[in-house]
């Protein structure tokens, strides 16, 4: 080990700490920019038995984008609604400070609402190399020709359960359980180092 330096992008970073913001891996223009700066309000909507279609319809009308009862992300400037299971939707909003209240008012007895805004850390991943990075952890087909903008999946990345979707041609989002933020970030850094990865952390304040 002594004779050659090893290139460990995580050298010196304790495993039980979220790695600090900064540049990791090869130098130069980063192939991937990862950020947790955006902290949406999040709630889980569970349609009660038999109400999945109706709930999807109401969500579509309220959030202005076609919500389907399938693994898709319905995206607008202010919100994203993702199907995670039959009759289950994760609603993300940048603006609804009382998202559960809004949803209860909207859906009434048709759905159970659970606040989840603190359950997840939302990663924004941008750059051409994102699919290659994610392929190092995912067991699903994330080829950009197959996994199109708006496609979503609840799956596992390198032993970490995630809900991810492709927000646009070049950006991807991943929701990770809050307790696993450090480990997931380590995966991103270890897998993204060959492309160069810039990590933008959360703004202090809400965290």
């Amino acid at each position: 080990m002594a004779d050659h330096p090893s290139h460990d992008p995580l050298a010196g970073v304790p495993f039980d700490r979220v790695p600090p913001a900064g540049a990791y891996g090869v130098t130069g223009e980063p192939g991937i920019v990862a950020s947790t700066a955006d902290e949406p309000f999040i709630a889980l909507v569970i349609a009660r038995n038999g109400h999945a279609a109706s709930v999807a319809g109401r969500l579509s009308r309220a959030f202005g984008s076609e919500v389907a009862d399938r693994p898709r992300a319905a995206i607008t400037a202010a919100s994203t609604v993702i199907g995670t299971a039959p009759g289950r939707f994760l609603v993300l909003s940048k603006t609804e400070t009382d998202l559960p209240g809004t949803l209860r008012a909207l859906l009434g007895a048709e759905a159970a609402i659970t606040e989840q805004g603190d359950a997840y850390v939302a990663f924004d991943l941008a750059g051409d190399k994102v699919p290659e990075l994610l392929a190092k952890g995912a067991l699903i087909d994330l080829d950009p020709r197959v996994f199109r903008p708006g496609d979503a999946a609840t799956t596992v990345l390198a032993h970490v359960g995630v809900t991810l979707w492709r927000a646009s041609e070049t950006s991807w989002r991943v929701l990770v359980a809050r307790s696993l933020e450090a480990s997931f970030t380590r995966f991103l850094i270890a897998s993204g180092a060959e492309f160069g990865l810039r990590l933008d952390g959360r703004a202090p304040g809400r965290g």
Partner: protein
Amino acid sequence: MSAPNRNRLASGGLIDRSKPLAFSFDGTDYHGYQGDTLASALLANGVRLVGRSFKYHRPRGIFSAGAEEPNALVELRAGARREPNTRATVTELFDGLEATSQNRWPSLALDALSVNRFLSPFLGAGFYYKTFMWPASFWEKLYEPVIRRAAGLGRAAVEEDPDHYEKATTFCDVLVIGAGPAGLMAALAAGRSGARVILADEDFLPGGGLNAEAGDVDRQPAPAYAAQVTAELASLPNVRVMSRTSVFGAYDSGTYGALERVSDHLAVPAPFQPRQRLWRIVARRAVLAAGATERPIVFGGNDRPGVMLAGAVGTYVQRHAALPGQAMALFANNDGAWRGMLAASVAGAHVETIVDVRTDVAPALVAAAQARGIRVLTGAQVIATHGKTLRRIEVATATGRERIAADTLAVSGGWSPSVHLTCHHGGKPAWNETLAAFVPGTCPPGLTVAGAAKGLFGLGACLRDGAAIGAEAAQALGFAVPAPDLPDMADEAFALTPFWHVAGSKGASFVDLQNDVTAKDVGIAHKEGFRSVELLKRYTTLGMATDQGRTSNVTGLAIMASLTGASIPETGTTIFRPPYTPVSLGALAGHHRGKDFRPVRLTPTHEWARAQGAVFVETGAWLRAQYFPRPGEKDWLETVSREVTAVRSSVGLIDVSTFGKIDLQGSDVGAFLDRVYINGFAALAVGKARYGVMLREDGLVMDDGTTARLAPEHYVMTTTTANAAKVYQHLEFCLQALWPELDVSLASVSEQWAQIALAGPRARDVLARVADGDVSNAALPFMGAIEGSVMGGVKARLFRLSFSGELGFEIAVPARHGAALAQALMQAGAEFGITPYGTEALGVMRIEKGHVSGNELSGQTTAGDLGFGRMASTKKDYIGRTLAARPGLTDPDRPSFVGFKPVDRARRLRAGAHFLKLGAPPDMANDQGYMTSVAYSPHLGHWIGLGLIKRGPERLGEHVRAYDPVRGEEIEVEICAPGFIDPEGVRLRG
């Protein structure tokens, strides 16, 4: 340095003579060129002795030019990067390469254990099973250590592997395995259709056999044609060419395992590059175009350095411009080998003699050989070899015997299609009489075989077949395939007479070169009844070496068949298990090693706890604060006792966010809880929580926890940390599979809520300063559960619960506020000396209180065992109720839950000690149960324990032995009720 290599042709080959590469073997410096393998470079430098065999330590040379290599295994690199058993034949040469021979001492040329070969008359197959039994005790002490030291091949590195590994998954329509003629054409046909194609090839240069082909293809040299097709493939956006990538296994549902050697051709990996990458390739269709492996003929002295497969000679001459020797002979049974040797001769090799077992070799071939000055002996056999490395061969002809000078003997007994991956789903290859070879049998679903791998041995046939199979694969998936443009190629006729073993040989005739299995060993196996192929392999170890029997399996089978008189297919088939070629363990592990072995879960207060000086402990995936030592404390026990005392006397706090937390909503939650808990929940009032015990359907306890009713149709359940996922899965099963009619929605909120337990007589005083509302006993009585807010508006759930037995609260806030809550509580409790405590103190207090936890919820205990018998409702059905009534689970003799005190209060108790009656001999019949949990109780000033003992609750006050021989201890303990402190529960109701 750049002087030409001794055995290097002046021109030709696919090496770059402008790029010399320095390397060393056994400490001697050499050089080769870009495009060499270690084997070709060694040959070019005239190195012929490269290794020692496994058992007899016989000198061995390079035998092949590929993954089938049985002899030329080296330790590559050094130090922490040492790679034992590396095949020189597939090792791409790089500048600075360092290789060492292995399995020899003190040196390759002078190996002490080569004396084994003089013992070889006694060391035949099965030898070990018949001896070393006298006296019995000598096996571990003497025989086995000697055998173990002598066995094995290379040495593992001593240090940790410094390189990185990765794993990745990719998907395609058509996976083409092998980039030889058939594979290239298959990839081209499928690629031109627009299908997503992956072409994976183990070599660093695509082309396979084309790169060793002397003739033209499509009016250009074969290697140039390969390069042209490769270039087109690389230009197609839907095609990915993966060189240095071995597809090693065919797994279920079209998943293939592949190993990409990202950096093995470099001295060290480039910055942030892995050494190797494991690929999981999910393919809708696969084309196996893995080619074929040449097999030798078995004869006396066939293992001498200088004896080499004929095709390998062709590869070294044509592709690497390296001459394996200066005076070559061929021993063959087929025309293909002749053509290869003639081409090598044209390229500059000195081929002097051809020996063929056949008498009817095509006159044109004989004439062509003779025209090049080659002596031809037909109807002849090589019966022996001579020289330390080969110097002469001994040939038996119709007229007699003669010795012929040769330093290289090319051998060809025909070709075995590389059917390996076709066997990975259990498919058995089928014997083809014409080819005298096994060809693919039933293939894994979606996989078809093309080219030589299915027994097509002509170049033109392989090209055509590859194109057809590639097109067929794409078409089957709905892609329109343009008509492929095929090079115009005529094929030479296939002519081979099966021949396996020169029966009248002199000296040992090796079937399996690496494991030193001889034809005689096959004979022993036959005599002793190990005649089926499975028994033959196991008894003789034939085919079990690192080359997986590529050059030996069929020959061994054929020799056995000739002994039994049965046909080869009757004797058995050679099947192959994955991996196709050995795969490094590092690659299979990928990034998941060291601290990254498994993800770590951190509590919302992790950083806060660290700042408080916490020592952390792994609790499943979680890292939790174990205790918070302070300067001057001499050990953990002092720290923990301080924490416990602080809680019992004033107030303390602990993060309990790791508990599973499940939101249940709907009109049927109460009914649902009634079915999953043994006790009743339907009548639980809003604003109240209740402790519940859950069974598995087999009647044993699964988990416990509290469930609170926050609103008429909204409940929140807590589970133990360990069982959080299991309980959630169980509840989903009940709801989705058993009772889908129930109106209940489940949502895990474990991550959403940070939860902090605040306990101690001053707990309410502290909470009152942090909570925004009333937390008086009236507003929040024991087992109360309310929603409110803390810290001036942070949403909170407040529970009046106690695990410690003290006045206690659990305060849940959205996770991001967890650390702030801890800080606020610390501040509010400062005047009471509020103390953060860890899992150890929590454990002490629950043991003092007599609560069960993980050690008691072992999956082996019933509700009755744990003292919950009376909790179980008799008015309703619930999961586990029926089977919990079985006699074995209701036997009053079952070990049941009680407490224990040391009779001598100064003694320490140990969990895991077994209970014996006083005076009873220590044996299994007298085993009465065991201590599940122990703690030092600072409150009582002595150790206390919880445990399970036969009829425990009936025996309070009785003394028994706590027997703990693994720690050399045995002490007398008194059985007592499990609640050591405040058994009436005054404190927690205070």
